[in-house]
């Protein structure tokens, strides 16, 4: 159960980092946050409510990915290698599902895999970063609990 709890905490923290990065965008703060709602076909007319809802949705989705991360590690203790690689893999899956497929489907793009260089650059590194942060925080939490138990 520890792995699931650790995964959830790491996912929520990584989701918070991702949501905050989306908040500090150029121009109007948080203008990209409603994109997370659009992945699920949700539209909120009030821009402020829409941004806050997007912010919290990203954190919740981070938590869900954290749960998946924790479940994948089972009850064993993971190496930094494995934590980072699993994180990168989940970051890639996040990008594939949300930033590519769902974005294109909701925009009614000609193909679910439509992608320009600008869109790729704007989304891919950030989503991979989410994965790296998720894996790193999970590993840090595991190291801390090992230190405390010694």
């Amino acid at each position, binding site marked *: 159960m520890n792995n699931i709890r650790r995964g959830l905490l790491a996912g929520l923290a990584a989701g918070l980092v991702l949501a905050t990065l989306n908040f500090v965008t*150029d121009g109007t703060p948080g203008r990209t946050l409603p994109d997370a709602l659009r992945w699920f076909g949700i539209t909120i007319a009030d821009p402020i409510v829409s941004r806050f809802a997007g912010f919290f949705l990203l954190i919740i989705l981070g938590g869900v990915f954290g749960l998946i991360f924790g479940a994948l590690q089972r009850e064993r203790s993971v190496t930094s290698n494995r934590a980072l690689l699993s994180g990168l893999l989940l970051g890639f899956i996040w990008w594939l599902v949300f930033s590519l497929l769902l974005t294109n489907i909701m925009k009614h793009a000609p193909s679910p895999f439509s992608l320009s260089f*600008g869109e790729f*650059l704007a989304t891919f*590194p950030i989503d991979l970063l989410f994965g*790296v942060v998720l894996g*790193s925080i999970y590993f840090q939490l595991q190291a*801390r609990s090992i230190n405390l138990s010694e």
Partner: protein
Amino acid sequence: MGISSSASDRNQFAATRAKAGSTVLAPVILSERSITGFALIRIFVGYLWFQQLFWKMPPDFAGLYKYIILESRHAIIPGYGALLQHTFLAGCTSLSTPSGCTLFVPLAAGVWTAELLVCLSLMFGIFTRFGAILGTILAAQLYVGLGYVDWYWTYGMLVLLCLGLTAIPAGRRMGIDAWLAPRLQAAANDNRVARLLSWFV
């Protein structure tokens, strides 16, 4: 400077410090919370550079042109404007578009690539100190060129932020350097390249 995570390390350090009395400077050890805080700062400074890629995108890097013109006119160091005129702006015929410029696109590509390296290095914590040094150089160049155009401290703060990250191993938490650093340090005794690379993590 070191990173300590355990209470026993801190106790040992406190005992050593007490023995040494006031004759020596105590070494500084960063706590887990401090280094994690610096890791977050590193990610956001990297994101700052990341966002600036999008207004000067390839293939023409047109967004950069206006700023090179400004730098060539308002540089705070004498001769820097002339240097830009003979490199970035060689052959340019217009003040608004890079038409006729012979070297603008390859040099602007170099700037864009350097900024991409800085943001990837800082956001992912991979060879973080290298990214921070490169960021310091780029920010210093902006300070020289645009110090009189924007608020004087804008680029000064950017220089200081990047300079701060060269001094701290901020990539060793929430970054790939956490994985790289022990491996490079282990190989550093036998391998000159590993020793050189270990300076940058």
